């Protein structure tokens, strides 16, 4: 991997059923990820995906791009909610470029969007290269 290399965008669909499966597997019962009424009661636009589900998909993209490289850092701000409709799916697109390669570490610049809106702030992944 060389600085400036573009990493092919990955598109992931998130359905309400995915939120149920993720909630069970991650042990996160927060009803804002399941219940429209509760979500709206705390000012959200609707049922939203777990931020960590979106970041988990980023982890999946990084794994695919790097052929399973060891992840040293992974993180982001959750700046915009990923609203998941009752029917159909929200589509999250994870795009990346290689930012730096130094001291055996590869830092990726990432852009993560849903419906054209950036949903993660300052997303960052560093892997061993």
């Amino acid at each position, binding site marked *: 991997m060389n600085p400036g290399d573009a990493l092919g965008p990955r598109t*992931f669909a998130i359905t309400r059923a*995915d939120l149920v*499966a*993720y909630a*069970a*597997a*991650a*042990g*996160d*019962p*927060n*009803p*804002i990820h399941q219940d429209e009424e*509760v979500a709206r*009661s*705390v*000012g*959200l636009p609707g049922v939203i995906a*777990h*931020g*960590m*589900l979106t*970041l*988990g*998909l980023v*982890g*999946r993209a*990084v*794994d695919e791009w790097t052929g*399973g490289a*060891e*992840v*040293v*850092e*992974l*993180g*982001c*701000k*959750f700046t915009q909610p990923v609203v998941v409709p009752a029917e159909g799916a929200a589509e999250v697109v994870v795009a990346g470029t290689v930012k730096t390669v130094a001291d055996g570490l590869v830092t990726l610049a990432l852009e993560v969007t849903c419906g054209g809106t950036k949903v993660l*702030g300052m997303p*960052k992944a560093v892997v061993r290269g």
Partner: protein
Amino acid sequence: MPVDQSLVGRECPPTAPLEVTGERVAAFAASLGAPFDASGGAVPPTYPIVLAFDAMQAFLTSEEIDLFRIVHGEQRFAYERPVRLGDVLTATLSVVSLRQIGGADIIGTSSAITDADGALVCTGRATLVHSGGAPSGQQETA
């Protein structure tokens, strides 16, 4: 003020140790649509959130903060080594910062995730946004 400023600096008790089993990781990976080989494949990098979330829930319960009023604002993991099947992990959460913006509490936390030998596996820094005022059972004063 809904969340007490004196929380800053508090270290919560460690969570109950949790074994990283093939079954647990397989369910986690499947929920992300990620491939996983239960006979010894790589564990998804976000898996330690299971431990960090456990620690966060215990913290919220101790402070009588409703989970549904919490939105995840930020999460950053720094790994000392990958999580492996068979690891027995514990999370210890500390409150590192607290500020109020527009009626919401912005709670900064750091969870040290350690293995059975007490060695650090990764550190998870999280920002929790608590909206909607008073914790359950208390009068809202704002």
